[in-house]
Structure formats: structure tokens, C-alpha cells
């Protein structure tokens, strides 16, 4: 009986003790971060003798910081923002005092070390102190540092966002050469600038095949319009003439075929070419001209520019049903549409009172906004393979150069393309040429 009384007493004691210690819980929802940028700090590069004693590590560090500057979702912090200066004694987590980094609101920290031709680079998350990226590169000479830095940043971007199209893709663009225009390719950071055509005349409107194996373009010369196709494997290009003497804005569809504007019936309509380069029926026939097709990744949607209702406006062709829908209603001159890979966004150039500007239209939300603001003219927008970055040509700095922004209209950065005007950029999922 005594034992039972004890058990009872203990039970009651337990219940009331639990009650005394119990605290209420409330549950809330937070939708979306207030800050869309994460803070990242690159610690001073270290050599065998401490910070700054390895030239290759210092060079690599500078390149990494330059690359991060292209990523609008990252804020590059500086050492003077950290209380007490460099909080590290080495490259690994145990060598880093994370407290001042946390106080400085640093989300990620990069450590870089170098010895001879070897480079080590790591990225840590500052609260959990977990290693997110750890890479070692050997036999790196000074000329190879930018390429290695790009690879490292591609890996960092992949870990943070799941995507790395910005670093893994290549731009093809038109550039003035000897009074004409030829096509060049370079990475999104301007690395590996290479002239890929030498056709004479004016090569314009490049478009990458989805696998990066070919570039289609228009060659304009005294022989009229010709469709050009450059082969990456053969490193040469072939030109083809079509009836009607017009071949404008050729574009690769996701299945590898080419859609191009031809004038087979007296005015330019868009035709899909078969494997033998024979045009099928007009894709969105009308009495007005239709040019500049652009496809989503599924190939079911195609946006294009057409004057079927008067001035040039952007239209959407639903290839499954064949219906054509007008996309732009503002402005009287909307041209050069580019459809995002997911088919949700269209970027295009609009003639405004201040010149040409780039606008984006969300086809789901049915909203539109301006993403470039000059000065000069901003033209030829093109989505990157992730549908996040937008490249375009602009005369804002004198001459025409290629710039990159995002679909949110982040500050545009110029892509180095060497001397001479560069325009009509097109993104492709292809590694840069050697």
C-alpha cells in the first residue's frame, strides 16, 4: 500500500512539475526573406609564410572577388567591416574565429591558400561552420588563374543556388571587324574571346543550338541574305541561300531544327527548316512580317515579333494549338523578344522617349516592367540558360558593348569583349572555346 501511495505521489509530482516548467508555444509563418542578397567575405589569401605571401593565391583571390561581383544575389563584404580584422590563422574551420564574422553579418567566408602552383579554396557557412565547398587545384600558372577562379565560383553558385549557367555558358555575339561584322564567342565573363567566323559582309543575329554544337546566324553581303551555320566540331561555317533573298533571325528550336524568317510569299514569315534545310509551312502566317522567333525549353511556345497589327509588337505562338496571342500592348515599337527557358518570361526591346530600353513581361502574372535604364540605347536582350541573367547590347558608355543584368533589373555590368563594337549577344549552354 505504501508503495502505491509513493507511486501516486510521484505521478502527481511529475504532472505538476511538468506543468510548472511548461511554456506556451506560438507558431508563425514567414514568407520570403527580406534580404535577397547573402553576405560573403573572401579572407586574405595565404601562402606558406602567411597572408599575402603567395602570388598565385592572391591573384586567384582577386579573380574570385571579381567573379562574385557579377552575381547580384551576393554582397561582397570587405575586411574593414570585420571587427578586429582578419579572424583567421589558417585555411580550415579550426583556424577561423567565426564570432566576429557572425557579428559582421557575414553568411559565407572564403579561405584561399597557395603554394607554388597549387591553390586551395574553401567556403564555410559562418553559423554552422560547415564546409560548403572545398577545392584544390594543382599545376595552375598565372594565365590559368581566371579559368580556375571561374570553375571555383561555378561550384560555389551550384551549391548555393543549384544552378551555374552563368559560368558554364558561352556568349556568341557580333563584333565589328574590318568594316564588316563577324561572330565571336566568349564566356559570360569575357574569357576566351575567340573569332569564330570569317565570312566577310555582316554576320548578325547569332543563335546557339541547345547542345552548344552549332551557331546559326544571318550573313548579309552583296550576295543578299544567307543563313550561316557554324559548327563547333569542325570550326567552320557554311552559308545557304533561300528563295526570296531573305533569311532573317535564324533560331535553333530545342529539337535542333532551325526556325528562320524567309520571304517565300512576298513578305517575311517564320518557317521551320527540316533536316535537309527545306522550309515547312509558315508557323504563324499573316499579311505582316514576322521575325525573331525564340523558344522555351519544351519547344511548345514561341515568341516572335510581328507587324501583323500595324507597328512591331511581340506575339506568342502556342505550337500545340497554333493559337497566336499578342503579348505587348504598351509602346508602338517592341522588338527582339527572348523567351526564358521555362516559358514564363519574355524580355524584349521597346522604343521609349529616351531610346530603346529592355522590358520584361511575366506571362503568368501578366505584368511588365523595365529592367534597363540607359543612357543611350539598350537592345538585343537574351536570356541565359537559367532564365535569370539577361545580356543585351548598349551604347551607354559610348560605342556599343555587351552588358549583363538580371530579370529583376539589377545593376548592369559590362562584359569585356575587347576593342570595337559588340552587339546581338546570344547565350548558349556550351563551354568556352579553348
Amino acid at each position, binding site marked *: 500500500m505504501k508503495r502505491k501511495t509513493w507511486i501516486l505521489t510521484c505521478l502527481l509530482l511529475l504532472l505538476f512539475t511538468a506543468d510548472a516548467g511548461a511554456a*506556451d*508555444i*506560438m507558431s508563425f509563418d514567414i514568407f*520570403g526573406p527580406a534580404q535577397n542578397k*547573402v553576405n560573403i567575405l573572401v579572407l586574405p589569401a595565404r601562402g606558406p609564410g602567411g597572408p599575402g605571401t603567395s602570388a598565385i593565391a592572391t591573384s586567384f583571390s582577386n579573380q574570385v572577388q571579381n567573379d562574385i561581383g557579377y552575381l547580384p544575389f551576393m554582397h561582397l563584404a570587405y575586411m574593414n567591416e570585420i571587427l578586429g580584422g582578419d579572424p583567421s590563422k589558417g585555411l580550415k574551420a579550426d583556424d577561423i574565429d567565426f564570432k566576429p564574422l557572425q557579428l559582421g553579418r557575414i*553568411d559565407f567566408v572564403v579561405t584561399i591558400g597557395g603554394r607554388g602552383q597549387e591553390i586551395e579554396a574553401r567556403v564555410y557557412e559562418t*553559423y554552422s561552420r560547415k564546409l560548403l565547398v572545398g577545392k584544390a587545384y594543382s599545376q595552375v600558372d598565372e594565365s590559368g588563374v581566371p579559368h580556375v577562379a571561374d570553375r571555383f565560383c561555378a561550384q560555389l553558385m551550384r551549391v548555393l543556388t543549384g544552378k551555374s549557367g552563368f559560368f558554364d555558358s558561352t556568349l556568341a555575339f557580333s563584333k565589328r571587324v574590318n568594316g564588316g561584322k563577324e561572330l565571336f564567342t566568349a564566356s559570360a565573363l569575357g574569357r576566351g574571346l575567340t573569332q569564330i567566323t570569317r565570312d566577310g559582309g555582316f554576320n548578325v543575329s547569332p543563335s546557339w543550338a541547345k547542345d552548344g554544337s552549332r551557331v546559326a546566324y544571318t550573313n548579309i553581303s552583296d550576295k543578299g541574305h544567307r543563313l550561316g551555320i557554324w559548327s563547333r566540331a569542325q570550326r567552320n561555317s557554311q552559308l545557304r541561300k533561300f528563295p526570296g533573298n531573305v533569311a532573317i533571325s535564324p533560331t535553333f528550336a530545342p529539337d535542333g531544327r532551325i526556325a528562320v524568317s524567309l520571304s517565300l510569299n512576298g513578305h517575311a514569315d517564320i518557317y521551320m527548316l527540316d533536316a535537309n534545310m527545306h522550309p515547312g509551312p509558315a508557323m504563324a502566317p499573316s499579311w505582316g512580317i514576322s521575325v525573331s522567333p525564340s523558344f522555351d525549353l519544351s519547344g511548345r511556345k514561341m515568341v516572335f515579333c510581328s507587324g501583323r497589327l500595324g507597328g512591331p509588337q511581340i506575339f506568342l505562338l502556342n505550337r500545340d494549338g497554333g493559337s497566336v496571342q499578342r503579348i505587348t500592348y504598351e509602346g508602338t515599337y517592341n522588338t527582339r523578344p527572348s523567351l526564358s527557358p521555362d516559358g514564363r518570361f519574355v524580355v524584349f526591346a521597346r522604343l521609349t522617349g529616351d531610346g530603346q530600353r529592355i522590358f520584361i513581361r511575366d506571362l503568368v502574372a501578366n505584368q511588365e516592367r523595365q529592367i534597363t535604364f540607359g543612357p543611350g540605347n539598350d537592345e538585343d536582350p537574351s536570356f541565359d540558360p537559367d532564365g*535569370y541573367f539577361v545580356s543585351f547590347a548598349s551604347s551607354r558608355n559610348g560605342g556599343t558593348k555587351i552588358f549583363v543584368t538580371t530579370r529583376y533589373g539589377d545593376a548592369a555590368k559590362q562584359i569585356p569583349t575587347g576593342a570595337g563594337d559588340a552587339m546581338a549577344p546570344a547565350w548558349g549552354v556550351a563551354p568556352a572555346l579553348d
Partner: protein
Amino acid sequence: MEDSRRGTGFILSLVLHALLVTAGVLNFSFTRSVDMDKPMYSVDLVSLNPSEDPAEGETGEAAGGPPTLAEGQPEEQAAAATPVPPPPAPSAKPVPEPKRDDSKLISEKKVEEKKKPEKKEEKTPPAPPQPAEKKLSKEDLLKQALQDVQKDVKDKSKNAKPTAKAADGGKDAVAGELAALRKSRGGNIFTAGGTGPGGAGGGKGTGAGGHGSGLMSSYGGIVTQIIKSHWRNSTFGRESNLVATLEINIDPQGKITGAHVVKSSGNQIFDASTVRAAMETQNLPPPVNKTLGTLHLNFNLQDMLK
């Protein structure tokens, strides 16, 4: 043998009764989900107070003390929580009787209906009617008050030094601000159940709707706003939503004493960003309910679709 069975039965009966009593005391509601979509006018405890001294009506009992019966709180619960009801003080201000059991939103009409019996009770000191105050919409006033409080508390939390003194000073920031604002409006806007700490809804937040009182909701709004302002993450590359649930422990002064992920999003970088947001916040306004020690925050990467 028979005695032993009876004894066991008796003890079992005692244990079950003890459990029942404990359950009644605990009120079976440790976790509440605050519906942030609830419109602010759902704070239904506002009525015109005929009393001369408006401050009296605002003073609520501290949480844990003898609970003042809140409007919308079931009478059975109140009875269970107060086994020995304190004798009513003769000079005490008449407390509006909780006649309604339903916890739905109270319409404007119902508030008006409650005014009448109050007036009858207070015939001796007739409250001078203030026509200017009648023109004010209670929704407008409360909205404005809460907006100001949110703004002030946010500013304070930014500037406040994390000293115990400062924390104590800001203990009743929300309630204090509300009281001050009501006074500045002429002092005749009151919460029938009292909106002081532990007032409306008491410790268990049994205000209208059963999801916590309007004050608790506004506290939730302030908390989410402050923590969200410290949350950094890139939405780039994430087409699908990520959700992580973070448990945050706070002390009665609102200081965040710990935070850990109780339900992972499956993405460790995202999870870490939520912990960083909480730890960088450091201090929240003191909770309106002193027994509130834990917050569960569901961090959604993507904003709500509009």
C-alpha cells in the same frame, strides 16, 4: 485480495481524477497557431468604456495571476482555472460579464449590445458622453495603434542595448504603447477583458476565434516582421518552395536564448539561414503572455502567391 483490489481501484481512481484536474488546469492548449491572415478588426474586445478613469479598464492581470475572465472565454474553463473565485471588491470597477460562449468574430452590433448593460450598472457615476470619440471607428483606432506600436517596437529593438535594465524597461512595451495611445484618444477605448499582459485571452490565448487574441496576433506580426528583416537568402534558382521550422526560445524579456531547426527543409544552407536570422535578431519585444517561452517559425523561401 478483495481489499487489495479495492485499494488499487481507489488509487487508479485518484490518479485519473488527478489527471483530469491537471488537464483542466493546463487547458490542453500548449501550442497555438496564430493565423496571420486574420484581419486586425478581429480584436473583438474593444468597447466604449463608460468609466471615468480609462486606465482602470486597461489594466489586465498579469499572466499566471488570478485570471480575469476574457470575453469569448468559455465559462467552464474560467471556472476550472479559478477554483476559489476571489470575493468581488466593493470598490472594484464592474467587470463585464462574459455571456457569450461562441469564439467567432464579434460584429459591431454585438459590441453595441454590450454597452447597454454596462451603462445600467454605472448609473451612479454617469460617464459624460463624448461625441467626438463616438465618431472614431474602433477599427481605425486599433489599426493605427497597432501600426504605431509595431513601428516603435521595431525602432526600439534596433536601438536597444541588450542590458537587463533596458529589457526590463521595454517589458510592457506593446501594452504600454497601446495604453498611451488609447489615453491620447480621450481614454474611452477599452478592452472589455483587459489587454494588459495576460489580460485578453489570458495565458492560453482564448480570444475570439480560438487562435489567440488579436493582441497575440499582433505580437506575432511584430515578431515575424523583426525576424524577417534579419533573414538573408537568395531566392535565385529555387523554383519550388523550401520550408524549415525553427524553434526559438525566448525569456520573459523577449531575449532570444536559443534557436534550432525542428523541421528541416532538406537544404542545410537554407536551414542555416533561418538560424542566422534568429540569432542576429537577438531581442524581441517581451511576449504579451509571460508563459510564452517558445516560438515556432515556419520559414518559407518563397513569398505568398498574389
